[in-house]
């Protein structure tokens, strides 16, 4: 047997992630997309990048600085990875700004939205207005800071935009001093100026400040100035063992996030060399981590333009999720689910039934208890409101609010306190594990016995993201799943683990082995000359054990099709290793988020949905739930999702043996955008009766090569 551990068989996680961000950037480059959609994709790449710096680059920097020479699955040390990342990201950011300047801004201009890149480009009339705005609104909130021997370099906040300047006394007697001023984040970043012909001109706050910089240093002359932005290490290391109150500990660490080590410095192109040196020295940033940008800092601001009123012709038609057919006749959710399991596909189908489920439970006199896990919650969440109401109505409400959900820690602390105040039993999460599973359990006393209604999902209980993330959710009152759900919450509440699980596959201890066994089973079938097939859809794949098993399966003749949106450390097309594996990534209007696992199992067709990716963190360090879909009709529904995605010829990009992703060669194939397909499917299923079992259009077949 081949040694599947060879590092050459694996892609580096970080470089693979950069490829994903490149695929997002490709969307920003697509001239066939409405311009605000493209700008939005560009902003998404910038937002993704911020997190990548704060977490991934930061933690690699920590490892590198600690002198650890351990190699990753692709055989790279932290230092080597940082070098490779820096090289790729310099190219990437250049490409971002090229896209902005060469393609997006001219197109926006054509459509009547003009970005004034520099204050120097303001007309006299415009300059008057911006000056007035500066004097009345901006000036009072600014804190300019000069640096000299008596005034040390100030602490610059993480992700803040700042203007650095070299100033000298007007008489020119003293040496130039360094000064910096933070662009206030309490004010809107964009300022619109409107022409008589209706053209909108947008100037960013930092340019208005630059325009009026001399007013901040009255006795001085501005010799040169430029905008810069830093990103700090924001990877929280929480000492959970010693934390007497996890909530307070996390609050403390979040405050500290503002002052972590600087791991990225971006500056506007053409910045005075003296300022550059001053900043690089003061922040102690390596040369590799300094980026010169040909345009505004922090492109994620442009997401806001996507949401602007008007400009409808510049973005996709607003999509309204279709109602879920089963819940349309006004029956109580409990009554519907008692009859049969209901599977929902968001955002094509509305997320409202999930909110309604918790709401109805909070008002139902027969409901005894509600239990839910929350990872990322929307602002003003109706689910939180329903949980509060339930607790106030005297129901037993237990909520696990994962305080360690990265960058949602502050939000979650607020929710946790709010729920506690309403009388809910709030669990902050498990020691050393993040609870990423999405499960709601409602215990109801009914005539024939205690009934447990369960909702299991692949996405968060977040009604906002449910409109833009593709996810699936199941309502069921299956007794075995209900009993498992109780066991999950027992475990999360700190009670003993269950003796055995009936149907749910739960991480960290059991899920990985379950996946390995199911892959092994396909291997056995393939070796026995039977048909063997695995289709798995997930966000990321980097678990070495699983990848090795997939390589083994590929060699045994198992046909494997993977739909991996983001990181994929598995390599395809390696002779004698992975010829039987295809990988595709779908990046589209909605963020692909559902995790679906299909095992042919000699015709039995085992299908699972869940919250877990095939990643180390999901299988080893998180509480995750993967659940089976058993109803034949629902199984067909999930299969349809998989096979349509495997047939996607417009949004899918196929992973190549050379490590690149290429669009599907459409010769001889029809044009299919899977996300558009499901939009139509959702409204169509309201009108049509479901076809008879087994008479579906989508039948398992080999994936396109």
């Amino acid at each position, binding site marked *: 047997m081949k040694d599947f551990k060879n590092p050459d068989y694996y892609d580096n996680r970080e470089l693979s992630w950069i490829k994903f961000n490149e695929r997002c950037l490709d969307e920003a480059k697509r001239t066939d997309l409405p311009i605000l959609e493209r700008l939005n994709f560009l902003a998404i790449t910038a937002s993704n990048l911020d997190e990548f710096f704060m977490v991934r680059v930061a933690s690699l920097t920590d490892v590198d600085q600690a002198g650890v020479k351990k190699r990753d699955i692709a055989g790279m040390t932290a230092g080597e990875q940082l070098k490779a990342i820096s090289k790729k990201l310099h190219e990437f950011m250049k490409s971002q700004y090229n896209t902005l300047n060469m393609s997006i801004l001219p197109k926006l201009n054509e459509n009547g939205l003009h970005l004034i890149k520099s204050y120097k480009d303001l007309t006299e009339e415009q300059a008057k207005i911006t000056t007035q705005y500066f004097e009345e609104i901006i000036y009072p909130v600014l804190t300019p800071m000069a640096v000299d021997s008596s005034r040390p370099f100030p602490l610059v906040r993480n992700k803040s935009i700042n203007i650095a300047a070299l100033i000298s006394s007007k008489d020119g007697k003293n040496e130039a001093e360094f000064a910096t001023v933070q662009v206030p984040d309490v004010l809107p970043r964009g300022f619109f100026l409107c022409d008589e012909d209706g053209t909108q001109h947008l100037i960013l706050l930092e340019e208005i400040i630059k325009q009026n910089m001399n007013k901040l240093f009255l006795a001085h002359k501005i010799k040169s100035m430029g905008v810069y932005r830093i990103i700090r290490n924001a990877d929280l290391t929480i000492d959970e063992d010693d934390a007497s109150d996890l909530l307070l500990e996390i609050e403390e660490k979040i405050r500290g996030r503002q002052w972590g080590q600087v791991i990225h410095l971006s500056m506007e192109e053409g910045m005075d060399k003296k300022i550059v040196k001053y900043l690089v020295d003061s922040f102690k940033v390596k040369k590799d981590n300094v980026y010169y940008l040909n345009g505004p800092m922090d492109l994620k601001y442009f997401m806001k333009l996507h949401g602007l009123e008007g400009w409808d012709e510049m973005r996709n038609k607003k999509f309204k999720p279709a109602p879920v057919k089963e819940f349309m006749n006004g029956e109580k959710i409990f009554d519907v689910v008692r009859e049969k399991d209901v599977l929902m596909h968001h955002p094509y189908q509305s997320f409202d039934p999930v909110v309604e489920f918790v709401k109805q439970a909070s008002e139902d006199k027969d409901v*005894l*208890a509600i*239990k839910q896990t929350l990872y990322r919650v929307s602002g003003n969440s109706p689910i939180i409101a329903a949980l509060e109401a339930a607790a106030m109505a005297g129901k*037993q409400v*237990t909520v696990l609010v994962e305080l360690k959900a990265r960058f949602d820690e502050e939000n979650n602390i607020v929710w946790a306190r709010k729920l506690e105040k309403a009388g809910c*039993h709030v669990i902050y999460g498990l020691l050393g594990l993040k609870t990423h599973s999405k499960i709601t359990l409602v*215990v109801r*006393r*009914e*005539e*024939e*016995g*205690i009934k447990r209604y369960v909702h299991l999902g692949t996405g968060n209980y977040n009604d906002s993201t449910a409109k833009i993330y593709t996810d699936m959710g199941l309502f069921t009152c299956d007794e075995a799943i209900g*009993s498992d759900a*109780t066991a999950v919450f*027992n475990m999360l*509440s700190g*009670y*003993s*683990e269950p*003796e*055995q699980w009936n149907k749910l596959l739960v991480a960290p201890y059991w899920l990985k082995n379950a996946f390995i066994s199911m892959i092994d089973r396909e291997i056995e079938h393939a070796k026995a000359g039977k048909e063997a097939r695995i289709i798995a859809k997930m966000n990321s794949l980097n678990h070495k054990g699983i990848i090795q098993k997939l390589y083994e399966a590929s060699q045994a003749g198992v046909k494997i099709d993977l739909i991996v949106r983001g990181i994929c450390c598995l390599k395809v097309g390696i002779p004698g290793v992975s010829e039987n594996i295809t990988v595709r990534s779908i990046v589209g209007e909605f963020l692909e988020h559902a995790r679906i696992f299909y095992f042919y199992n000699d015709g039995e067709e085992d299908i699972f949905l869940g919250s877990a990716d095939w990643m180390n963190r999901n299988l080893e360090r998180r509480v995750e739930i993967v659940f089976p879909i058993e109803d034949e009709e629902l199984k067909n529904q999930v299969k349809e999702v998989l096979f349509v995605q495997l047939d996607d010829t417009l949004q899918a990009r196929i992973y190549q043996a050379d490590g690149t992703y290429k669009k599907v060669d459409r010769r001889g194939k029809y044009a299919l955008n899977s996300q558009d397909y499901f939009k139509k499917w959702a409204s169509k299923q309201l009108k049509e009766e479901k076809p008879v079992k087994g008479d579906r259009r989508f039948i398992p077949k080999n994936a396109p090569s």
Partner: protein
Amino acid sequence: MSRLHVFAAITIGSYETTLTIYQVNGSGDMMLLNKVKEKLLIGKDIIRTGSISNGMIRKLCKKINKLKKLTLEFGAEEVLVYGGTAIREAANQSFILEQIKMTTGYEVNVVTDPQQSFFVYKGVVSNSKYEEISKDGALILDASPGKLRVTIVNGGELILTQNVSLGTLQVREWVQETGYSQEEQAALIREMISYRLKELEDVFFADLNLKTLVIAGDLFLTQASWKSKKGDMLNADKFIKLCKKAQKHLTQNMSFTEDADILLPAVIICEEFFEKIGAKQAWMSGIEMNDGIACEYAMDHKYIPTIHDFKKDIESEVIKIMKRYIHSAEHNEYVEAVSNTLFKGLLKGANLTERESLLLKIAALLHNVGRYISMEESTRISAYIVKRSEIVGLSGKERKMISEIIRCHKMDYHKFVEYISEEDFNRQEKVIIGKLTILLGIANTLDVAHCQKFQTVKTQIRDEEFRITVNTLSDGILEKSFIKRHDEFFEAMYGYKLVLREKNQRFNTL
């Protein structure tokens, strides 16, 4: 809705506190809704100091309150709380119970060892596998942290229950004191267990042919490699392999496997028992005390049909105890039958229950077992033997009551009043003891010559009299003269005059 019943059982064990919640629906189907365990080693305090520390009590109350919340989540209408070995043996038991009552609102029933065994047995009986395994003989082994409990069934009948002070927690403490290395510990434990097992084997199950070893309790089933086996029936080969594998794993990973030092003795005990009794298979039942508690509660409340006559099990074991001491049991059986007749005759209006009928029956069967030791002090010694015997299914209080009934059954009323007033019983209990004592006294007197002269004994209540009518072929002078001694006692207890009427059948009359 009223046809649905949800109830919970909480057992406070030496090592962990277990909560199980059940429901019984209108069709009488019983279903487990939730089961959780909270680890708290209260037994450790008992082994070391004989009492449970204040800090530990505080933790225990906190944990019980946490479990109480879970019972609310299912709307449990009744929560039955039981204390096992550690609470029973705690010198400060009364104060612990009061603390629990104050903090959680729960009244804890402290159970005896035989009661604990009986609950486990009831749990086993309620399982569908019971019928199959009980036919060919089975030993139910509960190697719990507090005690080692053995129950034997054969031919569908309960043969024996026996408790041994060999809780795995205790074994752990002993082994730790020796300071032996991890490798040596397994051998030491095996030696210790073999020795105790030899005693049991010689006395109790040398001649029995037992096909199945039933592993009760799920503590060691939680050990990783055993967990998935719960409910399985393993053949000898598989079971022994499993034991060896677990021992190897636990010995090697003693320092970093949670509970390994408790699990190791448990595994060795199971293996030793399996080999000693020559079992052919092991049933990894995992059944616990709570299962039996629930089964009893549901049957007592008629939520589920009676699945087994547990009273008969108690009687059958009492007869076995009796036979250990009495060579010829005719007198005991006669006294038992007569006392039962008297009891039934008085049942109406005497404020007595079926449970008290059982107590009387046991007292009648064992009232003279002390003769085996001394003819002279037979009553006192009989009472002592009963007090010290492990009688399955009885609470400590009940056993003590039976002991007192035996001790007093020959006393006159005044002596009884004088004696019982000093004893640690409440008013109700004293009344029951009095009522049953006098019935045993009368029944025994009706066979004072130990030759069962009266062929039939009938009773009737008429005109403030309780009339006992006997048929005899021989002269009953002795009995008639002795029975007068009970007149005052009987009247004080039941309010009737005692009248013995004889239908003499020595002569044919018309």
